[in-house]
């Protein structure tokens, strides 16, 4: 019997766990995870692992950290060869895991009472639920408050500009030599599409938007053209960086807050994980005045309070694992309100674990308050378009709506044609 090594870390959420039987002694749970360079998330997971080891003598949780692309390459190879780890990182768009029975059905195993019901919905496939939704994020429009006041613009009380007011602002900023919206698609297939899908979602409302993505509503619908027309107007007004096509996700943060600086930044609410680092690690400069506004309200929109929330990084259990109970127990050790709050506080991004942002105190309480304000009364659509689309339209969506359209390479009619032809 190995001695528990992590006794010092035992102070977390372990009290809730009943130690598993002695028969499970000397097992190693393997976990492959993204977030190799995200210290806070690593520390969170490693902390949970050490606490779990302390509560279950003889159990070792061995985490291998990867960046996302290498992880997916390694994982998909290993899964095909039947050599995947017990637990691994996944995102809910990976329906193929569920369709092929590669991950364990957690419907009756996870403490769903401690998880948000929408997160469960996102992780559900044909009535069964599969993943522990650690990370969740909304699409937010961050802005540089100092620049906004320099341009003499006043944000309405509800935090949402109207369509024309925002267009005017874009033009004003561009004329002043300030990039209106920082955004880049150099290494991700989704940020460029934020611009379009938030407009489409507002214009159509959740129901029709869902039909559009599924291919049940034609892309030649006049409302679609109108929403895309708004995006096109922004693009033509020079809303995006010239380097849009090759600007990487991390770089687009730096572009927004440091060099050359932009007025707004349309980004997932995982923004703080990069921006709240110290400046020499790519974080925003000291004294930066960060604000959050709502995506502009569209004229004639069905649902101007609609916005996207996505479940991001989650953990799932390999269906072929020999330690299913142990693996589920480890996931459950993170599915507690305490761990939910700890997630918020450590990682500054939402989670699918039930948590209470109002309990957050300290330096970042103000940020959470602002985030709560712009999400007050919001009606959510769950998931990014590319997470719910079929493979072929998704490929076109990635290339056209995410990149070519915001890059100004194609116009509204091209988008409609390309997307219509993809289903």
């Amino acid at each position, binding site marked *: 019997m190995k001695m528990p090594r992590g006794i010092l870390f035992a102070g977390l959420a372990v009290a809730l766990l009943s130690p598993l039987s002695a028969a499970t002694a000397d097992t190693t749970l393997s976990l*492959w995870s*993204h977030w*190799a*360079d*995200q210290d806070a998330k690593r520390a969170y997971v490693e902390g949970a692992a050490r606490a779990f080891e302390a509560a279950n003598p003889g159990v070792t949780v061995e985490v*291998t950290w*990867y*960046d*996302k692309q*290498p992880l997916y*390459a*390694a994982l998909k*190879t*290993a899964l*095909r*060869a*039947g*050599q995947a780890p017990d637990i691994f990182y996944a995102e809910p768009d990976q329906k193929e895991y569920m369709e092929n029975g590669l991950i364990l059905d957690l419907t009756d195993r996870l403490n769903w009472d401690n998880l948000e019901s929408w997160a469960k919905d996102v992780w559900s496939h044909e009535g069964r639920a599969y993943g522990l939704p650690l990370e969740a994020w909304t699409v937010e429009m961050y802005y540089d408050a100092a620049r906004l006041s320099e341009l003499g613009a006043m944000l309405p009380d509800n935090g949402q500009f109207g369509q024309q007011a925002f267009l005017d602002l874009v033009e004003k900023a561009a004329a002043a030599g300030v990039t209106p919206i920082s955004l880049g698609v150099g290494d991700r297939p989704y940020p460029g599409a934020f611009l379009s899908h938030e407009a489409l979602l507002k214009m159509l409302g959740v129901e029709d938007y869902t039909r559009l993505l599924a291919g049940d509503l034609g892309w030649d619908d006049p409302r679609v053209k109108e929403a895309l027309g708004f995006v096109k107007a922004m693009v033509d007004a020079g809303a995006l960086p010239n380097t849009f096509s090759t600007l*990487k*996700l*991390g*770089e687009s943060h*730096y572009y927004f807050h*440091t*060099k050359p600086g932009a007025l707004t930044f349309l980004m997932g609410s995982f923004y703080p*994980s*990069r921006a709240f*680092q110290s*400046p*020499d*690690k*790519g974080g925003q400069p000291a004294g930066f005045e960060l604000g959050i506004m709502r995506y502009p309200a569209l004229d004639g929109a069905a649902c101007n309070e609609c916005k996207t929330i996505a479940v991001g990084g989650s953990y799932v259990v390999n269906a072929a694992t020999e330690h299913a109970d142990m693996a589920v127990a480890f996931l459950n050790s993170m599915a507690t309100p305490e761990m939910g709050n700890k997630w918020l506080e450590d990682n500054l991004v939402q989670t699918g674990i039930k948590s209470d942002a109002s309990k957050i105190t300290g330096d970042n309480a103000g940020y959470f308050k602002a985030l709560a304000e712009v999400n007050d009364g919001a009606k959510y659509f769950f998931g990014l378009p590319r997470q719910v689309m079929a493979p072929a339209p998704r490929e076109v969506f990635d290339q056209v709506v995410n990149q070519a359209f915001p890059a100004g390479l194609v116009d509204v009619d091209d988008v409609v044609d390309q997307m219509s032809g993809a289903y």
Partner: protein
Amino acid sequence: MTTSIRFDLKHGFLVVALALYTAFAAGPFLWVASMSLRTTTEISAEPYALPDTLHFSKFAIAWTDGNYGTYFGNSVIVVLSAVAVLTVIGAMAAHCFARYRFPFRRFLYFLVFSTIIFPPQITIIALFQILVEYGLFNTRTGLVLAYVAFQLPITVYILESFFARIPSDLYDAARMDGYSEWEIFWRISLPVAMPALSTTVILNTILLWNEFLYAVVLITDDDKRTLPLGIQKYMGDQLIDIGMLATGLMIAIVPVVIVYVFFSEKLIQGMTAGAIK
């Protein structure tokens, strides 16, 4: 050889052209070299400036904190073994294909050669299963064997066409002197083929030293990983730490430069020595 150098217009033009090309070819490398001594903050502020403070400590940081020491050692072991094995067995096979006639010779050669182009992105899945079956997954031996298999067709291709051009008189003479077949290979073919061998050594070393896909998929333990994974560490999702990336690159590049300088001399000398005339 009497190509004399006169300082006329034509040569002036040549010198300018060469200087321009040199700046173009080596400029990016020098840029990376200068960045390896600057911090990422400095680089972001002024990408093209020369270093004003030389941060040599970054090399120590990469070596220890970045775990480059371990990765470097692994890379040396893996690449050195793979290239050595490749060179020897590739040369043996190439010599055999070029200098002996036997049934299915063309067929076998064609078979080996044809796999030169299979996309590794696809075959890696089956390769992975094989390594698991042989118990070689997540071992350096497995990676070495995968590398040898990966580069073998191209090595055989380069060497075979060279061996085939060696005049037969050399071999006939050796046989008269009573050399065994192995001695003929070892003492005639190999030395004569030094330029071609150098080419394959350089090419294989460079390609394998920088190889990423196999390295990430076939190895999971951090203490068995190779340098390209170490470089990956500085180009994470958060931020591309270009300063450290450049430092890591300079560490990684040293052995390749040594191999190149040494073998490119061999390459040129071997040729000029006039072994094949």
